[in-house]
Structure formats: C-alpha cells, structure tokens
C-alpha cells in the first residue's frame, strides 16, 4: 500500500515537474523578446554613438504637474527598459533630459530653445499643454528637430510643420464612436451638455460632442459652461437635470470630472454621464467611487481592457511595480512616445535628426500599449479608440458590458 502511494505520488509529481520545466522555458523565451519594440522589423543598430540624448518638456510644477509627473515617470520607465533590454544595441545608452515648463508658454519656449539649440538633443517629447505646444513647437520645427506631443489634443498641432508629431488621439477621433455606441446601447434622445470653456482640451471635446450629437439627431436640451478649477457645479447641474435629460454629456478634465460626477449624483441624477479623454483616469474612479457607475468614456487607452495588447499589460505591471500606482492615459501615451522615439532611432540606425524624423514617420503597426500604432500622413496618430463604461468599479469596454447585460436579460 505504501509503495502504491509512493508510485502514485511520483506519477503525480513527475508531470508537474515536467510541466513546470516546460513553462519555465516558455517564460524564458518571453523574456528574450520583450512585449514591446520592433525587435525583428528593424535590425540592431550598428552606427550609434554610446550615448544618445532626447529631451522632454513636461509641466513638473504648478497645477499642470498632475499630468507632467505621471508623464515623466512613464518616460523614465520606458527609457530604463530600452537600456536594460539593449534595444539600441550593446553599450548604447538612451538618456532623457527633462525640462519643466510649469504650464507656462514662456517657460516652454525657453525649455525648447535650451534642449534643441543649447543641448542639441535628438528629439523632444512634450510639451504637456497644447498652449505650450503652439508656443514652443515652432522652435523645434525651425531647427529641424522632431517634437512629439504626448498629450496635445488640440486641432492644428501638427499643422505647425513636418517635424511636429503627436501620439495623443485628438478628441475628434475618440468621441464620435463613443457617442454612437452609447446612443445605440442606451437609446438616448435628449441630452444636457456641460463643458469647460477656458481650456483648449475641453473646448475641443465640446465641439466634437456637439457635432457627433447633431449627426445622430440627438436633441441638446441646454449647454452649461464652467471654468478650470471650479469646485461647485450645482447651478449648472440643477439647470440641466431639471430638463430631465436621458444623459449628461460632459467635456472636462479629471479634477472637474470627479466633482461633476459626485454632485450630479447628489442631485439625484442616476442616468449615464458621457465624457471624453479627461475622464479616462484611475483617479476619477478612485475619487468618485460608486458615483462613477454608468459613466461612459471614450478614450485612447483602456485601463481595464479584458483582452489587452501584451505590451499594455506589461506596461501596467511595470508601472505599478515601479511607482505603486496604476498608470493613466497620460502615462500610457508618454510611455508609448518614448518607445516610438527609441524605435525611430533603432530603425534609422543614425543619430541624425532628419533621419530620425523619417524613420518615425515610417513607423507602422507598432505593438504599443495604445494598440497597433501608426502615424498618418499628417503625423497624427492612428490606432483604435475604445468606448468604455464604468461597471462595478472598473472601466470595461462598453460593447462587452452591453452584450453581457443583454445575455443576462435573456
């Protein structure tokens, strides 16, 4: 009997060992080809100097630091990976020179001049705000240096010249799909609209919302405005909710979005709230808690995608490990931006600014956290946006939640 047990246990354990050995092998293979990067599409570069420097202009102080700090963390993470994995070849180190613009056009200009003219960096990420980009990007253009916005969503950014890129999906690429899906799913007819009228991001969002609502023949009951930094939205919300809308459509940044969600629920409104890119942040979920249920967000990057790109998952894990907080869309875009630069340098196999520009423009179907990523002929991003809904405390794709609800009804 004892022998039988021994044999049995050996029989049980052997396959386990075998399986674990095999899976360890598989794991090693995974580690050999990192989840992100053109490892096969472009050969390991041979002609690069030992140290390469790119610049980054982010708002690291003042109010804009909310976004700028996350952007810097994401870029640092990406560059650490690029160096650790030898993406640019053995012994080649990529450095990032960070400059603070404090959300101020004058400082952004000074920072751009310093990076492009004085420090002679290969390419520049940023600046954080569209206003800063309109002020500073022409300097990069005049000096033939690539500048890539990772959070500029305003219309006209890439019209400044052929060295101006961005990887942040503008609102007009995100919102129409979201609105359409939401209308299909929820049968909306009358909505109330609210937007911040002193910020490029929120105005762009509002314009696109209005166009999308018009296209779908949705009645706009009323339009209310607020300003950046507002804390009390009761008068706007009272007026909108009194008209009994099927949904509230809100174009706001994260800080205002949280208050709008909480206060709308306080006024007894429990219908859907549709928002733009600004709502797509773990902070919005954390701070508004249960009130966020039913918030619909169109976004360039989905935190809770159940079927994510491997690189998206790896990015989230690495970010949480490194910084202890979940990344938001700004971080995902900054991370992708740094990887795009590294890829352009790898594919160009050159430290010439013009070569890097051409290689960057030629990048196609790059497997980034944002999805398969390409630039269009205007150097604007091409990748699929996603409509998501807050369901049981997490962002989920709207389509899957609606399907799930339909199935449970049956």
């Amino acid at each position, binding site marked *: 009997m004892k022998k039988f047990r021994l044999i049995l246990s050996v029989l049980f354990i052997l396959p386990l060992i075998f399986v674990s050995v095999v899976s360890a092998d598989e794991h090693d293979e995974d580690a050999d080809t990192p989840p992100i990067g053109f490892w096969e599409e472009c050969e390991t570069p041979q002609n690069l100097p030992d140290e390469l420097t790119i610049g980054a202009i982010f708002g690291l*102080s003042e109010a804009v630091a909310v976004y700028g700090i996350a952007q810097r963390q994401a870029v640092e993470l990406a560059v650490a990976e690029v160096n650790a994995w030898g993406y640019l070849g053995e012994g080649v180190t990529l450095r990032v020179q960070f400059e603070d613009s404090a959300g101020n056009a*004058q400082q952004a200009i*000074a920072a751009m001049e310093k990076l492009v003219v004085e420090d002679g960096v290969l390419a520049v990420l940023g600046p954080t705000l569209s*206003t800063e980009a309109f*002020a500073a990007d022409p300097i990069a253009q005049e000096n033939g240096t690539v500048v890539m916005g990772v959070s500029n969503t305003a219309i006209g950014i890439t019209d400044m010249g052929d060295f101006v890129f961005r990887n942040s999906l503008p609102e007009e690429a995100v919102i129409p799909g979201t609105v359409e899906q939401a209308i299909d799913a929820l049968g909306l007819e009358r909505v109330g609209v609210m937007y911040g009228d002193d*910020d*490029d991001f*929120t105005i762009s969002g509002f314009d696109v919302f209005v166009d999308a609502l018009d296209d779908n023949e949705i009645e706009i009951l009323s339009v209310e405005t607020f300003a950046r930094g507002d804390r009390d939205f009761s008068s706007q919300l009272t007026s909108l909710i009194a008209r009994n809308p099927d949904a509230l459509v809100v174009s706001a940044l994260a800080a205002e979005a949280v208050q709008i969600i909480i206060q709308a629920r306080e006024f007894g409104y429990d219908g859907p709230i549709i928002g733009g890119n600004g709502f797509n942040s773990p902070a919005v979920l954390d701070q508004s808690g249960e009130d966020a249920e039913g918030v619909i967000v169109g976004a360039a990057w989905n935190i809770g995608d159940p079927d994510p790109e491997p690189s998206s998952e790896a990015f989230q894990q690495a970010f949480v490990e490194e910084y202890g907080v979940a990344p938001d869309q700004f971080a995902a875009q900054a991370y992708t931006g740094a990887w795009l630069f590294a890829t352009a340098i790898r594919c160009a196999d050159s430290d010439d600014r013009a070569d890097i520009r051409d290689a960057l423009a030629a990048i196609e179907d790059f497997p980034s956290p944002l999805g398969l990523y390409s630039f269009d002929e205007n150097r604007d991003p091409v990748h699929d946006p996603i409509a998501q809904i807050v369901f049981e405390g997490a962002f989920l794709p709207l389509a899957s939640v609606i399907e799930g609800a339909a199935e449970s009804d049956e």
Partner: protein
Amino acid sequence: MDFLIEAILSVVRPIGITEPVLQFMLVNAILGISMYLLLRTGMFSLANAGFMAIGAYVSVLLTKELDFALGAALVVAVIVCALIALPIGLPVLRLRDIYLAIATIGFGEVVRIFFLNVDNMILSYLNTFQDAGLRRYELVGGGRGVRNVERLTETWHLIVFLIVIIFLLTRLQRSRFGRAMVAVRQDERVAANMGINVVYVKNMVFVLSAMLAGAAGVFNGHLTRIVTPEMFGFDRAVDILAYAVLGGTSVWAGPIVGGFVLTALPEVLRRFNEYRGVFNGLVLLLVIVYLPGGLINPQGWRKLWASARRRLTGQPAQPEAGGG
C-alpha cells in the same frame, strides 16, 4: 545691433540665458516700469495684466487678420489701451490703497472673461439681429486663443524700446510732472494744496502705465505665437507687481532689474531640476528679508553693508572698539 546682442548672449548663455529668455526679460522689464510708474505715484493698481491682454489681442488681430506691420500694430494697440484706461481711471482712481487694488483686480478679470466670451457675444448678436444662423464664430478663439501668430518681435526692437523708455523716464523724473508724481505719493492733500492737479497727475500716470503694459503685451504676443486669456490672469498681475517690488521702486533701474532677475532666475536654476522651485523661492525670500527696499536700493545696500561690517569686525573686537 546684431553684434551687440550676440556679444551679450555669448556672456550670458553659459548661465542658461538664451535669446528667448533674454527677450522675455526685456518684455518683463517694460512691465516692471509700467508698475513702477504707478507705485511712484502711490497707486497700488493691479490692472496692468488686463492692459497687457488688450495690447496683445489688438495687435495680434491686426498683424494676423489685417497684415499690419508690428510697428503700426504697436501704435494702434497702445492708443487703444490709452483710450480704455482713461474712462476706467477717472472713477477707479478715486479709490485708494487696497480698495484700488481690488477694483483693478476686478478690471483684469473683466478683460480676461471678455476675451474668453467675446466670440459668443458676437455670435449671439449676429444670430439675433442679423439672422445669420451661424453655429460658431471665431475671432479670438475663446479659451483656445489666437494661434499661429508670427514671431515678429526681434530682440533689438525690445532693446531700442527699452532704451527710449529709460530716456523718457529720466527726463520725466526731473520734470515738473515727475516731481508732482512723488508729491502725490507722499501726501495727496498737501500736493493739492501746493497747486498740483492730483486727478490729472494720477490719471495721466495710469494712462501712461496702461500704454506701457499694452506695448509689453504687443511684444509678448508676437514672441509666444499664441495669445490666450489665461496668460493674463491674476497670476500675471501679481508677477508684474513683483518685478517692481523686488527690483525696488526708488530708482528707474529697480523694476528693470526686478523684471530681469525674476525672469532669468527660473531659467538659470534649471540645472537644479526638481529643486528649482525651492532655490527660486529661497532667493526671493532672502531679498525680501535683507533688502526690503528691493534689489536696486542704495540705502538698503548701505544698511546691509553696515550691519554686515558690524558683525564681521565689530563682534570679536568689541572691547577694543569700545576702548577706541
């Protein structure tokens, strides 16, 4: 002139002052002078960010939409500022001290919010009275601002402008009007009794100051290539005040140095990365504590020097000094 600018830049570039920084230093020096005029007459006004906005918007629209040359746009914008300053000044300057400050903050906010909403105002006018049936009307772009402004301001424009202003300022201070300004600051009633037309002096200075702030706005708008209402909020009003106060208001060089230092300091301190803000604050704090009259204040430096000498030589050798 180009040679001179190159020479200046080659000296200051190593410490982090590039040409754009130099340009903003010059613009802010003009703003400092506009504040200096007010403080010298005893008027604590925070309206100059508003006038700067008016100058910037008017000139940018002229150069962008009507193809004006920068010089012509400058003249028109400055005249517009003067015409707006006059009716504002007449009632508002009856207020004094903190009440004047609050009223002028109000003016700055009105200007900012006007530019934020002027497109919608025109739109609703067109739709109501002319039945235009428009969905959108874009003149100044609301919160988005006027973009893709040509960078027309050259460094030498600013240097020449500043030199002319300094020349006029030194002339002004020695004139009857300049002395009247000081008299009004020291005591309005006494000045009035001595036959100075206080209302005239105050309004004249307010208008001159508004014109200078407007000119700075013109130059600034054609440097940053984008003009948004947010650039001219309360923060900017306080910055302008700080140029004059930090530099000192006893001589005309004070606000110029104040504007230079406050603009250059954050750029020079870039090498400290995240400690930049700390060092910036520390420098300002030290100046305020040890030189309350501002950086360019001969009396303040003399006092500081005297107390430093007392401490250095006086303390260890106190008995000797007492004996001598």
